[in-house]
């Protein structure tokens, strides 16, 4: 067992976990933050994307112990009561169907908007499609997801 401590969605989290515990297992099974999903469990699908120290990572491909001292944000921590502008955009643009991939899509989307904004780069439709390479949707398709991210980026800029 390893003692781990990190900040999850602004709250200190501390536990003793088996050394082979993945970050996604810690979030879902220890903290019961089940908004982060496990789709493929092989680093392909992106349903498990969370932010670690402000960067999007696949939480199925990181040990919980490696996140020692980190600041972790999950889909539950994205908004403060009201929906985050990116969540609103996904709702308004029908950016989801079954919704399984959506938490990862939204965490990836907010990460890409933050990076492009910080670098002063234009988040074009082409750039969004390229940035979504690590997130797989198996039902609604990417058209409305891309539209939602464009709209969400605009909403984030004006909020």
């Amino acid at each position, binding site marked *: 067992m390893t003692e781990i401590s990190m900040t999850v969605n602004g709250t200190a989290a501390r536990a003793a976990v088996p050394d082979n515990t993945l970050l996604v297992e810690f979030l879902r099974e220890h903290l019961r933050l089940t908004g982060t999903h496990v789709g493929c469990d092989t680093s392909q699908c992106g349903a498990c994307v969370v932010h670690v120290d402000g960067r999007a990572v696949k939480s199925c491909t*990181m040990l919980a*112990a*490696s996140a020692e001292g980190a600041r972790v944000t999950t889909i539950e921590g994205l908004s403060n009561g009201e929906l985050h502008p990116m969540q609103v955009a996904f709702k308004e643009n029908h950016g989801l169907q079954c919704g399984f991939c959506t938490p990862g899509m939204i965490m990836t989307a907010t990460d890409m908007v933050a990076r492009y904004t910080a670098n002063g780069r234009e988040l074009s439709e082409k750039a969004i499609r390229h940035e979504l390479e*690590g997130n797989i949707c198996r039902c609604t398709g990417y058209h409305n997801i891309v539209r939602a991210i464009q709209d969400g980026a605009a909403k984030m800029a004006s909020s």
Partner: protein
Amino acid sequence: MYDLNYHRATSIDDAVAKRAAASDGQFLAGGQTLLPTMKHHLAAPSDLIDLRGIADLSGVKVSDKRVTIGAMTTHAAVAGNAELAKACPALTVLAGGIGDPAVRHQGTIGGSIATNDPAADYPAGLLALGATIHTDKRAIAADEFFTGLFSTALEDGEIITSISFEAPAQCGYAKFPNPASRYAMTGVFAARGADGKVRVAVTGAGADGVFRHQGLEDALSADWSASAVDGVAVSADGLMSDIHCDAAYRANLIKTMARRAVAAA
């Protein structure tokens, strides 16, 4: 994933000592290959020694033409480094095309070359750039470092600390990514030194891993242009055949990617 003992190293010496004390230890860098491999039960180290906590192992330094990249520098950090983009733009392009954004936030250059996956991007870049791989024990030329499929010149317990090279006059990288994994089905890195000599390295195609292509190097040393590739014979001998494509297809991809690499330089 099987049970394991996790250790966080605080220094290189600490990492080496912890690994030596383990019955079957492995170093953990970004974990983007090692952890999936362990989840598939294709690797089962008794102990993982996490290198993330070691100071000074990450960062890109560019001093005139001399480039040094710390072993724990992530692909995202290499891809986004403005100085490197001026000195050796093809390497930032290469790093920006590995996996996907989330993988690039975790995966490291040291981890990638220590793994030496036959379809990984960095081995082609470092071999074509004639890079030097620095470890806690010695400096190894890229020509000596990559020794075959998933194998390197690293000794048991040896840690890569940094990679250095002289930025070439021109260089380019092009890959044909597998549409699902984004690994190279074939990737070609071409670098033209200040002396006009060209080094061309091919990844994703060789049955024995990354390799330099003499015919392409000779042709491009004589004439650094995409059309110079046309007259080069690329044999399918020694190339991989798998469910994605056969050796003859990869031989053709080598020429196509070489043309694109030179055109992009």
